[in-house]
């Protein structure tokens, strides 16, 4: 096999076989090409590290000027003297909208993926699958526009209804004003991440080996039992990846939230009342009037968002890797 004579870079070329290979010239070109690709990789690494360092360098002076605790302060006035700013309200809004959106979107998305792979006839499933893939590509500004023009007016009666009948649950109490609330923003986010999660989940479910499914059915299980026994366990790591993808998108979404949320810097457990803010929307709304300290504060909040996204990504990867160790033996 060619692999017997492989070195780290590939098999040694038998330069004596074809004298026209021009071994010195060719070897030089080989080395140049290889160095070129290494240089590109190095350049990308340098760019990414430079981005991180620059952002940190901009954020630190602002953090030093801050007279309040960055993580517990809700006010945002970095350019005032004294400088006071904190991401408590922003972090709360970001996490609550993203978690709510995932709570609403995940079951529906998995249901869609299951439906398309198990229950709908093949002829219908493929075009519908394409439709879901296309919907995942729609830009977020369209969702924001639709949310602002169509959803916000519709949420007023819906929120009123929820508040009337479920107002005894503390998160749904309100003082009668509805519209651009955290709940509305979460609904828009849920609709936005739904196609993404559904598309990835559908790919995952399509990978389940037919033998596993047919074995379960042959043993007399109903379709749902078969799904529970062979499809879901097999696809669990893929579903986790899909969920992380959706969650990351919901955390970082700027424009749809900026259009649909009426921003203020308060932490409120009442999800139906107007107000709330997310880190990304705050950057989009206040970057124009941010002076040097203000920009540093925004960058600091953006770095926190980035770190959260990283933590979510890497813990999901750890979970998936551990599961792979378990399931490797069975497949």
């Amino acid at each position, binding site marked *: 096999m060619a692999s017997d004579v492989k070195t780290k870079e590939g098999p040694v070329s038998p330069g004596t076989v074809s004298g026209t290979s021009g071994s010195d010239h060719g070897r030089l070109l080989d080395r140049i090409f290889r160095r070129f690709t290494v240089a590109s990789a190095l350049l990308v690494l340098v760019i990414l590290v430079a981005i991180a360092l620059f952002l940190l360098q901009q954020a630190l002076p602002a953090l030093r000027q801050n007279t309040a605790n960055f993580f517990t302060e809700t006010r945002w*006035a970095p*350019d005032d*003297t004294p400088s006071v700013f904190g991401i408590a309200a922003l972090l709360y809004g970001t996490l609550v909208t993203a978690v709510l959106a995932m709570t609403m979107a995940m079951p529906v998305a998995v249901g869609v993926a299951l439906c398309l792979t198990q229950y709908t006839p093949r002829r219908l499933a493929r075009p519908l699958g394409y439709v879901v893939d296309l919907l995942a590509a729609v830009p977020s500004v369209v969702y924001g526009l639709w949310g602002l023009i169509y959803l916000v*007016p519709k949420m007023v009666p819906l929120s009123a209804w929820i508040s009337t009948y479920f107002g005894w649950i503390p998160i749904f109490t309100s*003082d*009668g*004003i509805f*519209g*651009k609330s955290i709940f509305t923003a979460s609904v828009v986010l849920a609709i936005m991440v739904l196609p993404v999660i559904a598309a990835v989940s559908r790919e995952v479910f399509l990978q389940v080996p037919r033998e596993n499914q047919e074995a379960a059915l042959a043993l007399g299980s109903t379709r749902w039992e078969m799904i529970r026994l062979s499809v879901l366990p097999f696809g669990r790591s893929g579903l986790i990846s899909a969920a992380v993808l959706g969650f990351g998108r919901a955390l970082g979404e700027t424009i749809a939230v900026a259009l649909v949320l*009426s*921003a*203020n810097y308060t932490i409120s457990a009442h999800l139906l009342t*107007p*107000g709330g803010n997310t880190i990304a929307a705050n950057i989009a*709304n*206040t970057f*124009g*009037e*941010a*002076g040097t300290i*203000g920009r540093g504060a925004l960058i600091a909040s953006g770095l926190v968002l980035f770190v959260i996204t990283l933590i979510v990504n890497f813990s999901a990867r750890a979970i998936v890797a551990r599961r792979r160790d378990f399931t490797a033996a069975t497949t």
Partner: protein
Amino acid sequence: MNIARFGRKAPLIGVALAATLALAACGSNSNGTSTPAASAAASIACASGTLTASGSTAQANAMSAWIKAYQTACSGATINYGGGGSGAGVTQFQQGTVDFAGSDFALSATQQPAADARCGSGNRAINLPMVAGAVAVGYNLPGVTGLQLSAATLAKIFGGQITKWDDPAIKADNPSATLPSTGIQTYHRSDGSGTTYNFVNYLSHDAKADWTYGVNKNWPAPGGQGAKGSSAVAQGVKSTVGGIGYFELSYATQNSISTAKIGNGMGAFIEPTTANVVSFLSKATVVGTNGDLALAFDFTNTDPSAYPAALVTYEIVCKSGNKSAQLPLIKGFLTYTSSLAGQGILDSNGYVKLPAALQQQVSSAVATLA
């Protein structure tokens, strides 16, 4: 690369190239009517180039009309006014990313050094008042017209103490109106705004006892819904029954939003009209020095027809030290806006032109920009 395969792709590439060229050629910048009024054309000193400006959204509609007139007469000029609020305008002027800024409040003592630094060492940034207007209080109550709100009531509404339209305080201001029991939804600016500054300035002068939140370009009171830019506040009020908000008068007229008569310190209710704003401004004095024309308002104005929540938008520009490539266009544009012709189009757009004496001072100041 396989030549044959490339050959198959060649027609596609040709189509793509043709499409790109067609796309580049088929766009047009000509919109709307292109016949400027003769008097306007006469006083416009054309220059070419691109100007970037940002800031006050209160003057955005006036800017839009001015830019339209200037660009129609001078096809080589492009002026981009970005809005964003007075706070953003000042910041961007200090950073040097815009050529001049619109702001509803003059540069403060803390802002002046950075603005001067932007103009170069030894140069100054000055405030040139360009357009006056009224901060109108718009409301959305179908069936209720001619609403009157005293300063104290306004302070309590925007401070969150009055929450329903049939509150006794509002009834006291409007003895003959039938008010519904709808909840009040207040809208304020979420960005740093000169409109906010002028509005709370008025409240803190004429409702001292009830407005305890101070004067700031960032909305200082708790509660209410924040919206970015005058347009968004107007949009909020327009789309919410029971909504109330403050914005420059042109936003109310352009969006058919009813405006309230607001109370001055003497118990009278004044309507936001051109004449009333002129009455108020006639008592304003120039406090800026050395070419700067910043104004101070007189809130003890006892004129019964003076609208107390007036605002003046300044164009903040370098007295000297402007970029030489931009200077002709800056001067040309600002000469037009401060001229009689430029000021003349303000009335029909929901603004108030500067008093004659002030207009002369501004015109002369523009002529000396360097």
